């Protein structure tokens, strides 16, 4: 077959949705699509519960915005909402930069076996469930049996019950999240770092740049797109993903700073059977996430080099 014929055939195939080349790819994506449809689209009409009085015996009446009025007048809702944003702020201030810094530091290590060891050890906590991690930290920080307090007392200090201090909790929780996720999250940055052209470093050295200047002028610009895309992508789910760790860590002492929307939804919906209120808060949260997603999309067009949107 000559090249002209191949080109014609390729173009003809390109116009078809299904052809021999891509049918297998479509088949591969089918199971996740079905799952996505079952678990994300079929339940979607359930958001109607936000506008109903719907209890354990089912539909009672259409309530309009009554549920929204109720939750917006509930102090617990605003407390959970505020706490959620505190965790978001801590997340962008500390958790997002942590794997970047970690990747940069790992990148500077020249001893290969040491680098691999550090990388492996730092990645391991990611595979430990939050229940176990919470247990480890509760034991470590216990005022009566915890090693941290043994050390404090050994040096003459007073034991502190860390997990009873609402003001300390966001910091402790952020530390735990970094400890758990920094190694794993740094993998993508390490991959991006591997793609930085070595000639740029050589040129920087010739220009007299030291390590820090090389990092600032070569490395960081080299992975800028990756950083931006990951940050932008994270906007759409900033209010999610905290249920499990918060659920296992919170207690009555720190309720005021640990309760978040997800745990409040669980408490209202699953524990107390107020499904309509839980759905109302869930819808409110989803609306915020959707606005953030569009914002992220708009932002991605402006900050990425090729001006592509993420949607």
């Amino acid at each position: 077959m000559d090249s002209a014929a191949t080109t014609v055939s390729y173009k003809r195939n390109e116009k078809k949705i299904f052809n021999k080349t891509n049918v297998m790819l479509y088949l591969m994506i089918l199971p996740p699509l079905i799952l996505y449809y079952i678990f994300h689209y079929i339940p979607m009409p359930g958001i109607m519960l936000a506008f109903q009085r719907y209890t354990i015996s089912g539909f009672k009446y259409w309530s309009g915005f009554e549920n929204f009025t109720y939750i917006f007048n509930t102090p617990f809702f605003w407390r959970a909402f505020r706490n959620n944003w505190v965790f978001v702020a801590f997340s962008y201030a500390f958790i997002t930069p942590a794997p970047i810094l970690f990747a940069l530091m790992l990148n500077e290590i020249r001893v290969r076996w040491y680098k691999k060891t550090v990388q492996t050890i730092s990645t391991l906590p990611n595979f430990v469930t939050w229940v176990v991690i919470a247990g480890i930290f509760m034991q470590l920080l216990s005022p009566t049996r915890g090693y941290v307090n043994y050390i404090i007392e050994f040096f003459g200090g007073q034991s502190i019950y860390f997990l009873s201090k609402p003001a300390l909790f966001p910091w402790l929780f952020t530390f735990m999240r970094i400890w758990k996720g920094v190694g794993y999250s740094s993998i993508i940055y390490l991959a991006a770092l591997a793609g930085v052209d070595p000639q740029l470093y050589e040129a920087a050295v010739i220009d007299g740049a030291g390590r820090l200047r090389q990092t600032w002028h070569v490395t960081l610009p080299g992975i800028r797109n990756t950083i931006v895309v990951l940050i932008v992508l994270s906007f759409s789910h900033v209010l999610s993903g905290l249920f499990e760790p918060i659920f296992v860590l919170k207690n009555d002492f720190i309720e005021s700073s640990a309760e978040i929307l997800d745990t409040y939804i669980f408490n209202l919906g699953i524990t107390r059977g107020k499904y309509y209120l839980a759905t109302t808060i869930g819808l409110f949260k989803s609306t915020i996430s959707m606005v953030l997603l569009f914002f992220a999309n708009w932002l991605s067009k402006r900050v990425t080099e090729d001006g592509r949107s993420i949607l």
Partner: protein
Amino acid sequence: MKKTKVLCLILSLVFVFSVMLTACGGSETTPTPTPATSATPTPAVSATPTPEPEPEVLADPDRVHLVECQFYGDSMENLSYKESWPKIVEDHYGVKITMTNPARNNYMEVIQLSAMSGDLTGLVELFGGPYLMEWKAEDLIYPLSDFLADNEVWNTIIPESWKEVYTIDGDVWAVPTGDDGLPTWFTRSMRGDWLDKFGLSKPYTIDEFYEASYKFTYNDPDGNGIADTTGFTTSGTWNMQDIFQAFDARLNHIADPKPIWNPNTDIWEDSMIKPEMADALAFLKKCYSEEVLDPECFAGIGGSGMRERVSSGLYGGTFYWDGWVLSFENNVKKVVPDAYMVCVGALSGTITENLNHYGVGIGAPRVMMKTTEQPKEVINWVVTNFFGDDWGFWTGRLGPVGMVRGEADKACTIEGNTIVRNTYINEAGNIATYPGPGFIGGLPAKALYTVYEVAYYVPAPPAGQEDWAERTAATAIANTKRRKEWIDEYVANGMAYQLPENLKESTSPKYLEIGGDISTAGTTAIAAAVSGNLSIEDALAEYKAIAKSIGVKEILDFENEKLGKTTEQSYD
């Protein structure tokens, strides 16, 4: 642009299709007609009038479905027993038995979701009165009075007090699990051997209690030279109700800071806004800051954590079921053989009378779901056979004969108490207890004042332990006597009072709506004040503001109006 339009069209179609699927997914259970609550049971219709109509003979149901919590232990325990029991009952009575046993930890959450989906059917165990009221209000369950109107066992054997407890708006809505009719209450277990060591007697006042607890913490009661002991422990507010009671800042019967009925003033009140609450919190704050109170008291150690701590021998005590005074004693003896526990039934402080409450247990309520087929036949069959028939009663309570109870003729009577074996010495020579179904909790007419402890040797009694059965039975009886002495003492000195079941919790619709919020607000305020995270004034002010915004006063007004009184407390 064209692509966007196509995408929008597809998404719209998907959404519409989802709506259709959801709309079509409703339960199609055929509703069983609800009997009118005031209607009398339908008599057998006869064509010609007869002077003496034949009483209706109720047929056995085709199938009975039971939803039980802690049936032979938690959901994954004793699976073979769980499987065998329904078969044995089925073989005996010829009625098909099916069961569901959700895990204890999230039992109510699971059955609530199941009720919402319409899948929950049969006779369902609930955790308590408030759920019963809610499920009645939600029209999920049948009233049982009419169904059981002609049931002989119901009319003659079941105590009237049981029926009263679960009567709402003139109808009985649940059948209790039952109980022997012994008083049940929480008391403080304290290390008697530690009190002896410091020359202290059993405390009756909050000051005496503090003095003892302080010494338990700082005077090395276990004598090992290490500061490893703590005055007392608790899981949240649950195990220190007596301290709040001493200051007349009562929590409710399950230690929730919710509106309660005060026996001394016969009025419903919110302890959280009483000045006495500040005094109670100041006392607890002092205990907490001095580490006389377990520093992890509000850290969610739970019931198991609390029990484990007291049993470890390193904690001076806690406030828990009176039977646990003996259990703690046995557990601590494994670590410190000379240890013993004393029972502190109440602590006086600001007030000296009607401090701690007790009740006469009747067990958890069982309700009949409206999705149940043959509801009348099912409830009558259950009541008749499990309360009226000896085989059913003992099989429901302790398990089938031959399966876990040994042989029936080995049951005996000692000092007028029926003793049924459920403890035995196993092949390894250790004392073991048979797990029980707990489907029936007891009946005053068949009370086992000491249910426990008669030997069932496998394969034969060990040498030198031939009298073990008698000894353990005697110990069990002695322990029951101790429990009786405790309650008698505190009733006699006026410190304990019986809390009527209908005054345990509010029946106000508002209470059902905001009960959880009140509990959260109260517990958070107490934890913040005790730990010093907030000043006592700020913590209580925060609670007051929340209580005002969610309308707690409505509950007080509702209940006080029923008593013909006016709420005196104000949230302004």
